[in-house]
């Protein structure tokens, strides 16, 4: 079976990272009026980008399971996809380059191919390295490979550029599903955080003389969010366990995790806006950012259809 409990060490890591993110990355930092803050540097000091790399390379020597726990929290706190790009770049490089990425001296950003030479780049300012995630591989490119112009993104909390990738995106990257796994963990975190936000709101917002969460119409929407978040968390954790110890099943479990987490984050983002009512339609409330982030992260991972296609091509897992 798969033991989805956390070890004492894992629990400590989660507590530590939650404290770090609460202090340095409250979701309020994403509001238009907030002062800019250098989250990337603080994460590097904590050891984030080399969490699963050997200590002699500047890493923390943890495993992929621990990294998944980190990225669940990264999703909850809406960290930039560039954080994921930098973790992946540090995995794929070596020597001084890897050390510089771990130390926060060099940064990576995600690119998303639109077919042919066209691509988006997300939060590319200050990045020296570009990362593209495909279901079964990660492609690494120098920043110079992309040139583009800013466009107005769906998710305004990241900078989106549209432009050209030299030579497009050819195959030949690292063969691994870990990018999809960590992205799925972020989506599971998004689905949990936005569920919590809406449930908290439903407990305090009163209409007809009682909290709206007392009404079944709202309560059942909240239950659906809780269920979606539970399913996503469970499958992401199972995929992490498979990635760590049963490689043969990893592709199946990770594709199932990505599909489950994409659906959960998208659904919960939508439901949470509805539960918030009029406030949920305002830019001022945080709730819309989670929905937009669900779309952004799903796009980065190739979209739900791609994960479905992948899943149908996997053999069933040997053991679950």
């Amino acid at each position, binding site marked *: 079976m798969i033991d989805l409990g956390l070890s004492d060490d894992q629990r400590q890591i989660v507590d530590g990272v939650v404290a770090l993110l609460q202090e340095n990355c409250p979701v309020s930092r994403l509001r238009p009026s907030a002062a800019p803050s250098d989250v990337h540097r603080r994460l590097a000091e904590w050891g984030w980008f080399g969490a699963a790399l050997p200590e002699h390379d500047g890493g923390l020597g943890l495993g992929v399971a621990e990294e998944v726990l980190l990225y669940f929290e990264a999703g909850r706190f809406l960290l930039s996809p560039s954080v994921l790009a930098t973790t992946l770049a540090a995995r794929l490089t070596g020597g001084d380059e890897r050390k510089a990425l771990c130390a926060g001296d060099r940064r990576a950003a995600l690119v998303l191919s639109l077919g042919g030479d066209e691509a988006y780049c997300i939060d590319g300012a200050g990045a020296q390295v570009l990362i593209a995630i495909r279901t079964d591989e990660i492609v690494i490119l120098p920043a110079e490979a992309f040139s583009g112009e800013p466009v107005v993104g769906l998710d305004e909390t990241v900078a989106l550029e549209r432009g050209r990738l030299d030579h497009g995106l050819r195959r030949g990257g690292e063969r691994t599903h870990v990018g999809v796994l960590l992205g799925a963990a972020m989506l599971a975190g998004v689905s949990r955080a936005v569920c919590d936000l809406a449930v908290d709101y439903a407990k305090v917002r009163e209409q007809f003389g009682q909290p709206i969460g007392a009404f079944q119409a709202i309560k059942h929407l909240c*239950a659906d969010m809780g269920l979606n978040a539970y399913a996503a968390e469970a499958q992401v954790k199972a995929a992490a366990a498979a990635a*760590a110890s049963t490689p043969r099943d990893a592709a199946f479990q990770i594709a199932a995790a990505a599909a489950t987490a994409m659906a959960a984050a998208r659904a919960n983002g939508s439901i949470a806006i509805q539960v918030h009512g009029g406030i949920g339609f305002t830019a001022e409330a945080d709730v819309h950012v989670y929905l937009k982030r669900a779309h952004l992260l799903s796009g980065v991972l190739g979209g739900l*259809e791609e994960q479905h296609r992948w899943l149908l091509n996997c053999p069933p897992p040997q053991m679950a």
Partner: protein
Amino acid sequence: MRVVQSAEDLLFRQEARDWLAANVPGERRPHETGDAQRAFDVDWRRRQYDGGWGHIAWPRAYGGRGLPVARQLIWYEECARARAPAYTNNCCFVGLSHAGPTIIARGDDAQKAFHLPRILSGDAVWCQGFSEPGAGSDLAGVRTRGVIDGDSLVISGQKIWTSYAIYAQFQELLIRTDPDSTRHDGLTFVICDMSAPGVEIRPIRNIAGGSDFCEVFYDEVRLPLTAVVGGVGAGWDVAMSLLAFERGAASFPVAMEIAARVEELLEYVESKRPSIEGAGWRESALGARLAAVRADAAALKSMVYLLIARDAGPAEGSYVRLFLSELEQRVSALAMDLLGPEGLEKASLGGWPRRYLDDFKTTIAAGTSQIQRNIIGERILGLPKGGARR
């Protein structure tokens, strides 16, 4: 967060696989309600019991193997893989999945010694007597009454939606023993001998064509007080521990079966591919639905692992129960669409159309999906209770 698979686990898995390969019945379960169906269910139970597979996790003293839950899950997984007779569509299910665990948790020594081995061997079939015409989702509205007379309880009233009542020797019966009580107080959980004078069973034909689902009437049925579980007046509490089993561990074998059923549908589509949607069925809308239920089935198994790991109290079982019951319906509805016109015949593809109808019960039994959502909202998410009558 790790895959646990010891050398002993692997040996156990192989042992299970070998035994199942030699013992899973070749014939299908009769779909008509009646003696042949009962015999099929009981024979399969008996064969497992005699083979040493009566129950993996129950204590040895009661005929189980006393092994950890991990081995139990391996057994369920291997049963599903071997396409063994289903766990729930089987009249031994009530005893195995909730009467037995409830007796282990709340019964006295005599009840354990008498009932548990009989449940495992198939010698005793059980049914549930909770719902009444006036107490469905609102279970605390139970009105069937029990009057204490010396060392007996005398029971009069009516139960309904009692699956397998016509097959059962024993029933988990929830009655009101304090006539002045209302709601949760004054209830008692008693083991009813279905052969006792005054018990009358009337089968109800269900939408899938079966009639194992019954009304039960009690006309001054006399049961010994020794058949009470957990003490007179403690019925609500005992019933709640039973429902925790019904919504929790009872889901484990079903989660494994659903994953196997989705694989069966994939094999079917693969074999029928030229006639279904051309070579590109993976790109079709049906392909997307197949992928979605495959992901959901994987997630359901993972939810079982998370439920076990978190051990966070009975309410979390409602997450698994709700997801499972709605997924079963999505899968059988998808099977109907995959079958096309052959879905018009109940027996097509091993009886998927019949299952499609039968699966409408899953979001009603063990608490409707709406009740599960109330539980999740109130007991897990901490939302305030609603409704005027609390």
